């Protein structure tokens, strides 16, 4: 049994490293922070981490199948813009209309109230998932390299976002914003459960920030089952050795489509939260690009190989958190924000250097190019 543990640790050295790195950085941060180790700090950090963590998870799945998805930030932004129309929660509903080619088309009224909000959330996630599915189909059936296919679709998704929100705006239901961006106690109080969060048994967990709970739920209910499904296994197999996967009779095409579809779903979750958190939709192109690039950095810091086959979305969550914690440090130590890219770059370099050590063991130098 001890052997097994040793093997598991050795195989997951990337994740173990990033979890340790994050823990150290985060404890240091809290020690340095005047209000460190308080629920308020945790809640704020959770809100800042969530969207990037989701986009990092999104990026992980195609990378595991040795593809890169350059549209994750765009999907996030597009879903956020949709959310700013669908999650207003306005009593009596929201009238929707389409202004195109000088025409004014009324699309009817989107329902308001709690039912409307739930329907809106489902729709937003469905839009993200569909965007990912389209990416997958283009890669598999169009036989286009993922990096260029998603560069193109990403531009399309940004275009749709700009069409929806030429200028930042829209509105998100205030209760929804409050419930999801604070602690569990605030959530219970807002949706009136557990005696408005005052139940005795609930007290010990009432301080936990909702974003972290959502992150854990999505990881446990979506990622873990996927990883243990035959399709998830096939994604790893395709990234590891596509030829061998084919020869073993695995559904290669379905695995690739599933990888991009899941990426769309995760990116959609990120966009949804970002809209809820900021109470608006914003087709921010630089922001979409930054999220895409940071997602790749998070994946690498989280111990996933860009060649595919090894790694995990859980590692990427921690990779995203490491990136964010670095920026927290800049805030409390009052360092010029202009230095931030420098430090992020150095940490990224250090992380990839560890992964590259295996090169030293290669005996046939031709293998380095395969």
């Amino acid at each position, binding site marked *: 049994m001890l*052997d*097994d543990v040793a*093997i*598991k640790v050795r*195989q997951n050295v990337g994740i173990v490293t990033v979890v340790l790195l994050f823990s150290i950085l985060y404890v240091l941060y809290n020690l340095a922070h005047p209000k460190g180790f308080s629920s308020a700090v945790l809640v704020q950090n959770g809100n800042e981490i969530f969207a990037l963590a989701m986009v990092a998870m999104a990026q992980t799945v195609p990378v595991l199948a040795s593809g890169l998805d350059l549209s994750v930030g765009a999907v996030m932004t597009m879903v956020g813009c949709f959310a700013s129309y669908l999650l207003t929660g306005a009593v009596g509903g929201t009238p929707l209309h389409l202004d195109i080619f000088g025409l004014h088309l009324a699309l009817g009224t989107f329902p308001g109230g709690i039912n409307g909000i739930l329907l809106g959330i489902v729709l937003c996630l469905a839009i993200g998932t569909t965007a990912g599915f389209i990416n997958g189909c283009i890669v598999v059936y169009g036989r286009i390299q993922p990096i260029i296919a998603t560069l193109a679709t990403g531009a399309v998704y940004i275009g749709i976002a700009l069409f929806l929100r030429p200028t930042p705006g829209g509105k998100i239901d205030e209760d929804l914003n409050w419930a999801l961006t604070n602690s569990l106690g605030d959530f219970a109080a807002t949706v009136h459960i557990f005696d408005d969060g005052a139940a005795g048994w609930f007290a010990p967990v009432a301080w936990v920030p909702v974003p972290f709970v959502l992150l854990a739920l999505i990881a446990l209910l979506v990622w873990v*089952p996927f990883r*243990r*499904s*035959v399709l998830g*296994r096939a994604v*790893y*197999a395709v*990234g*590891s*050795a596509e030829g*061998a*996967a*084919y*020869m*073993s*009779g*695995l559904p290669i095409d379905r695995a690739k489509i599933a990888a991009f579809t899941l990426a769309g779903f995760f990116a959609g979750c990120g966009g949804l939260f970002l809209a809820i958190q900021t109470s608006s939709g914003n087709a921010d192109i630089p922001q979409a690009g930054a999220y895409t690039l940071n997602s790749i950095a998070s994946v690498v810091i989280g111990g996933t*190989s860009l060649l595919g*086959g*090894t790694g995990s979305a859980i590692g990427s969550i921690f990779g995203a958190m490491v990136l964010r914690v670095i920026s927290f440090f800049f805030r409390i130590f009052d360092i010029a924000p202009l230095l931030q890219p420098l430090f992020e770059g150095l940490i990224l370099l250090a992380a990839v250097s560890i992964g590259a050590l295996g090169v030293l063991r*290669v*005996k*046939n*130098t*031709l293998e380095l190019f395969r």
Partner: protein
Amino acid sequence: MPDAVPTQGAFLALSGISKRYAGVRALEGVDFACERGKIHAVLGENGAGKSTLIKIIAGVVQPDTGTMRLAGNDVSFASPSAANAAGVVCIFQELSLMPDLSVADNISIASPPRRFGLIDARAQRRRAEELLAEIGCEDVNPLMRARDLPLSRRQIVEIAKALGKKPQLLILDEATSALTSADVEKVYAMLARLKSEGVAILYISHRMHEVEALADRASVFRNGRHIETFDKGMRSTGDIVQLMIGRDIAAQYPPKPARKAAKPMLALENLSWEGRLDRISLSIGAGEIVGLGGLDGQGQKSLLLALFGVLRGVSGRITVEGREVHAGSPAAAKSVGIALVPEDRKTEGLMLPMSIADNLAIASLSAISTGPFVDRAKESAAVKRAIARLQIKIGAPNDPVSTLSGGNQQKVVLAKWLMTDPRIILLNDPTRGIDVGTKQELYRLMRELADQGAAILFYSTDYDELIGCCDRVAIMYDGRIVRELEGSELTETNIIASALNIDAAVNGGAAHA
């Protein structure tokens, strides 16, 4: 010739199977059958059609003509998984493991045990343990990644993976080539058990003693045709070697000059690498063409790569014209005058999208440059000379090299290296997949280069070619040079016998290593 192919009661029966690859015949009108509860060896030299036969049976490729019957029913497999579903399981030579997945994952990759629709890791692990125990290799931990196992253990995992598919017909294609002798015994025991359970087993091996020990029946293939099938003990090893020899087309080779003693250009002493090369000593004189023979994968390619500086951790001495060299990279090897025409011209020999001229000049840029800049005039003159010298048939030097035929592409690879004026030329199967006419031109060119004083080390899978071109042939087996054949010893019989590392029919006085 007695050709006893019992189609009655056969478990698998092929009739009239033919297959061509891009016009090259791989199999021609093959009839073949095998029975349950028998181990059936398939024999033949390189390119005899064994691999194609197996690939057809295992559903990797589809035959052009012919029918296949399994347990009395007509079948045709569109994919390996369709063959697996029918109980036909093949352990291929090139491993089919996913390096980043665990042993347990790999073994159950196609149909893992599931609970609530998800893969049941515990059951999967138990299954892996049971299957590995069946082969007697409990020491492999199912949690290990395939990547982290040594080659011999990976082969064991491959066998366990095949066992897990509950084969009715099990095909082993050189499946024991990487195993340690202790593991080979375990695999033999497993095969004996499967045989007693009524599984039909097809066994492809280049190790004659294995075939003698295991097989109940053997079929010999040659040039894509089924030659003969016989039961155990009906044929001596010498007979079998004779059956494997024989070729239809004889190529024209340039005459070999009388050998005169030349000073050694390249000398190797006790070259070893990673267990793949085992204390190789060889000397090649200026003006000499030395062949590297033997079956595929006995270390010939590694030897060429070692000389060209591609391999790390090579021990032993390499001397060029008496001076010891340490070629740590292809660039270093080039600087001492070594050239290599590599195994795969499409990935290692050429930059396919680049132009013919660029490809030709790429290895000798320093000679045609002034300072950091390539001298366009010198370049085009050198390119023109190279094209004329090798009579490469091209449209324009600026066309992408991918537009050329295979033979002309190979000429570009060779010409590129000739432009560096090499003293030592290493050739890795340069005539594979090119037409007879171009082959003959290459043979002539090799002789011409040797006459001008180059030392040539020539690996070929075609024995005819080795006999026709080489002054001397070193036969490799299991990483060693087992015999050097020269002059009248240089016959196909001797090459095959040496390649199989058996003593049959050797009429020369060469010592058996």
